[in-house]
């Protein structure tokens, strides 16, 4: 929040502190507006996330930052440069992990890294040196001579991450880095990204997984329907838009619909989902006890801490993953 206000104040020194700065950033495809006038700032060294459901405009925003998709309207500055005029210079300092892997299946794991380094104008020796280091880093050193095709989804993802690091980027753009991976593979990716962050690499990522956002992001914006609906650290967002705890009540089929006012006053806020009721309160257990006293008998009860999912539900009235 402070970064935003400082940058918005507009003095040149302050503005240069943010690595990426967007004001009124808009992307239109014909009559369709994919990104509708968003403002955000990414500070050096932070992990910044775009959280939102599919179709919220996250990927379009990332592609504009990655200088592969021209902006339709508004301002965008990346590393102090203008993507309209200095796209190639900006891209030279970015590491991009696209949503879909774009590896060359006809080459070996190591060749994929070598060739990619050559696109950044690195010498062959330098490419070879970096490729070996990066294969080590993403734990693929023993697969260097193998073709890409038979690798598992998690390995391909790690190779894509290694490839994006070949130019030693200042900023990494990760579009849904762990979508489609199994839990173990996800944790391995998160661990590598966390190490990169510790080395001072700025991470910009999109995700529709709240746990990913909570794990990785220092700060994030919640996007919905082409707009930013909230901004802050995961903790700030939860404090601001939700309660500390949530009690989830599941009733036998048909019962929930018959319960009209019985939840009145039980919790700070009640969300009615098709399959369950969410009761938001500082003390979830107290809600459960109070509900029992009123004669409510849910089939299952779960008391948990609020997550970004609850923030999203509050902000948009919808779930993140539908």
């Amino acid at each position, binding site marked *: 929040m402070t970064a935003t206000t400082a940058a918005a104040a507009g003095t040149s020194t302050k503005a240069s502190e943010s690595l990426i700065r967007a004001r009124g950033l808009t992307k239109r495809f014909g009559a369709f507006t994919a990104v509708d006038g968003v403002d955000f700032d990414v500070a050096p060294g932070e992990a910044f996330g775009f959280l939102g459901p599919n179709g919220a405009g996250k990927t379009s925003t990332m592609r504009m930052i990655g200088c592969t998709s*021209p902006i339709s309207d508004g301002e965008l500055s990346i590393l102090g440069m203008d993507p309209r005029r200095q796209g190639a210079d900006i*891209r030279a300092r970015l590491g*991009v992990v696209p949503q879909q892997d*774009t*590896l060359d299946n006809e080459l070996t794991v190591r060749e994929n890294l070598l060739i990619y380094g050559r*696109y950044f104008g690195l010498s062959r020796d330098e490419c070879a040196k970096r490729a070996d280091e990066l294969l080590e880093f993403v734990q693929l050193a023993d697969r260097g001579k193998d073709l890409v095709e038979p690798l598992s989804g998690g390995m391909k993802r790690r190779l894509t991450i290694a490839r994006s690091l070949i130019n030693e980027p200042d900023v990494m753009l990760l579009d849904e880095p762990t979508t489609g991976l199994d839990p173990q593979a996800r944790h391995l990716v998160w661990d590598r990204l966390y190490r990169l962050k510790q080395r001072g690499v700025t991470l910009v990522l999109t995700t529709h997984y709240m746990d990913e956002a909570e794990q990785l992001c220092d700060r994030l914006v919640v996007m919905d329907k082409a707009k930013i609906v909230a901004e802050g650290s995961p903790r700030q967002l939860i404090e601001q838009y939700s309660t500390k705890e949530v009690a989830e009540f599941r009733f036998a089929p048909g019962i929930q619909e018959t319960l009209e006012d019985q939840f009145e006053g039980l919790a700070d806020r009640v969300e009615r989902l098709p399959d369950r009721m969410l009761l938001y309160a500082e003390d979830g257990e107290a809600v459960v006890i109070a509900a029992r006293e009123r004669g409510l008998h849910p089939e299952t009860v779960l008391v948990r801490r609020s997550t970004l999912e609850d923030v999203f539900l509050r902000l948009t009235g919808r779930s993140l993953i539908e």
Partner: protein
Amino acid sequence: MVEHRALQYRRTFRASLFGSFGIPALFLTAMGLGLGGYVDRSADAVLNGVTYLQFLAPGLLASSLMQTGSFEASFPILGGLQWSKIFHAMVATPLRGRDVALGNLAWIALRLTLVGTIFGIVIVAFGASRSPLIVLAIPVAVLTGVAFAAPIMAFTATQRRPDRFAAVFRFGITPLFLFSGTFFPIESLPSFLQPVAWLSPLWHGVDVCRALMLGTIGDAPLLALVHVLILVAIATIGAFLAIRTVDARLEKG
């Protein structure tokens, strides 16, 4: 720019060397042997003292490169844009859409040079060229191939599936192969069809290659120049279109 293109050759070179080397070599050997049989039976007088093999060889040279160029601008390009999406990975680096388009065209030209040179060696081995100017016929045939590759690449970049390639080959490439003076002089066509040959890029290429290889280029140098300029124009316009469509496609994601 130049370095980027050079790097792209390298990438594609490695990727496709094995797959694409063998096929033209086989094709050439089969055609060359098959043609040997014709030579014996051809009557000298029909083609003004030129054997049929000598007549046919330049036509095959140019049309073979047309086919290779057309193929290379269709499936492999769609692959990079749509299937493996490696071209999308390239534009996340300092490369731009135009580098991808021109780099691929440069690669196709290089591959055509390779295929054309092998073809030329086979032609010479069969004694099917009457002039050392075959050395110039090869670049003309390469130019012919590029004149097909560039516009086809522009078309490919507008496609998401390969469905329409079959139509391009069936109704575009194959008729041109048959009716552009490859197998018989266009003078053998009904007179109303002869001007149509001017619309065929392949005929321009075949005519120049034949004049060079038969050693008759001196008879009509101006006509040869016009042919070459037409091919250069088609290749250039095609390249501009390809830059535009490839760029637009990569921007769309």
